[in-house]
């Protein structure tokens, strides 16, 4: 029988959990906002680069959902990003709907739909088969966008995207301030939502599937349906990133749904740390920033230097930069989890 004391204890425990989770989320939000403010003040001439970083962070976050939390191997995730970018771009350039939030919304929906379609194909395979199917999807999407040049601009890219001012007040200025602030706001919202999702029973189920799908099935949970749902969520996030890229850069190119971008997103995720969300943000930031710096210093051999950095990270800290930071933190506290 459940007594009043038991109910009170349960409520208190539940409230404690909610408070702790909220505190972690609030800390993460503060870190993101503080970093964004610092970049805004210190590098006002590089805001376009940072906005592009945030868009790619959404792609990496999305990839982290399916790879880091559900164990699905994919090298075609840019298809979802590109779907969002082209949907937002076509909405603005072909149909004249230039409200940035409408563009972002359509991008997210297109990404979710692309995610569902991708998942139906990719989840048929396992391991290497999944990888091959995912590459096929992004190559098909790339080729389709190339052929449908009347809609997508083909290899010239889709131009003529002119997003209206936000709320009719804030124009997308030449320096990229408005786009950067919008990008950071979106990133915060998406990050918190994803944190909530991965902590939910649905998120736990996805992590369980990653470890032991047979066991999850034996517990009566629908493995396939859960993964399709997760892919739809991941697609919405990647699509939002793509749409943000279209809104910020006012152009959508074929590179937005390329195999190269898919592979780079995976590299960024591994660099930052798989299955941690924050790793996706850090990996993307470090990778693009490092690439930017090294390319400026040595335009001929920068890819070699980036390659060496990746080898060093993967060999010496396979859990990525966040894994290294966690290890240092744990050592500093003199304990282990």
């Amino acid at each position, binding site marked *: 029988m459940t007594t009043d004391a*038991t109910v009170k*204890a*349960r409520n208190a*425990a*539940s409230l404690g959990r909610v408070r702790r989770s909220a505190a972690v989320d609030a800390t993460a939000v503060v870190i993101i906002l503080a970093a964004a403010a610092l970049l805004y003040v210190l590098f006002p001439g590089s805001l376009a680069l940072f906005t592009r970083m945030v868009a790619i962070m959404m792609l990496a976050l999305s990839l982290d959902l399916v790879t880091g939390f559900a164990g699905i191997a994919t090298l075609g995730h840019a298809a979802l990003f590109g779907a969002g970018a082209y949907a937002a771009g076509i909405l603005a350039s072909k149909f004249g709907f230039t409200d940035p939030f409408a563009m972002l919304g359509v991008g997210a929906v297109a990404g979710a739909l692309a995610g569902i379609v991708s998942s139906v194909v990719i989840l048929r395979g396992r391991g290497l088969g999944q990888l091959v199917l995912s590459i096929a999807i992004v190559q098909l999407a790339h080729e389709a966008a190339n052929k449908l040049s009347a809609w997508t601009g083909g290899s010239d890219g889709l131009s003529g995207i002119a997003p209206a001012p936000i709320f009719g007040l804030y124009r997308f200025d030449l320096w990229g301030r408005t786009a950067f602030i919008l990008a950071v706001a979106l990133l915060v919202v998406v990050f918190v939502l994803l944190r909530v999702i991965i902590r939910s*029973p649905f998120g*736990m*189920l996805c*992590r*369980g599937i990653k*470890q*032991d799908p*047979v*066991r*999850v*099935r*034996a*517990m*009566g*949970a*629908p*493995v396939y349906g859960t993964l399709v749902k997760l892919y739809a969520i991941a697609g919405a996030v990647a699509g939002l990133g793509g749409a943000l890229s279209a809104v910020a850069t006012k152009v959508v190119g074929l590179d937005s749904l390329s195999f190269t971008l898919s592979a780079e997103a995976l590299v960024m995720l591994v660099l930052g740390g798989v299955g941690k969300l924050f790793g996706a943000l850090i990996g993307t930031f470090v990778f693009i920033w490092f690439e930017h710096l090294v390319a400026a210093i040595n335009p001929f051999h920068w890819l070699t230097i980036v390659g060496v950095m990746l080898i060093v990270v993967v060999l010496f800290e396979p859990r990525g930069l966040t894994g290294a930071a966690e290890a240092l933190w744990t050592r500093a506290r003199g304990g282990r*989890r």
Partner: protein
Amino acid sequence: MTAAPLDVHGLSAGYGPTRIIEDVTFHVPAGGRLAVLGRNGVGKTTLFASIAGQTKRYAGHVTLGALDITALDGSARALGGLGYVPQNRSIFQSLTVEENLQVGLKSRPRSAIEESYAMFPRLKERRKNLGSQLSGGEQQMLATARTILGQPTVLLLDEPLEGLAPVICDELMAALTALAADRTTTILLVEQRIKAALDFADDVIILERGRIAWQGTPAALDADQRVVERLLGVGH
């Protein structure tokens, strides 16, 4: 939650082309406790895996309550009320104790996890630890608690005491006995510790080469040392 009877009729199953169990038939009434005994390799684990829908079936039927689950996959059987704690425990190593339990909630509220902590207080102490950081006994408690959270009407426990220290065995068996006492769950137990199994069960079947070689009550088995020595290879 109401216990359901389990009927296994003429079940033959195995892996790929290899038949492991052959023409197995038994009935466990609602709320009953059945111990499945036998030497290593006689098909006890395969029998449970087959009831749970994880092997290839060649013949026979499995009925859970009024529901014929023969053609259902493992997921649908679990939704139909079948709970299965496998021999290897299969807890999620990278999830915490509490997260492991959350996965087992199905559609129940999160507060139901307190039931698991009431059953195994040790899990509450370790609720923030990862599955990989638990001892064998704690992993077994977690696997059992996670399955029970789903409120199964029939529960299959495959060697829950394997490799555990005596004090942990006692703790685990006490919890299972308490669960069985109100007869709201039908429990089938595969166990190598024969005394513990016989103390727990109402009925016993002994497998030999994939077939039922003996069936009866614990008292009858206890009284027939020749059967014990011939089919189980031990005196107990």
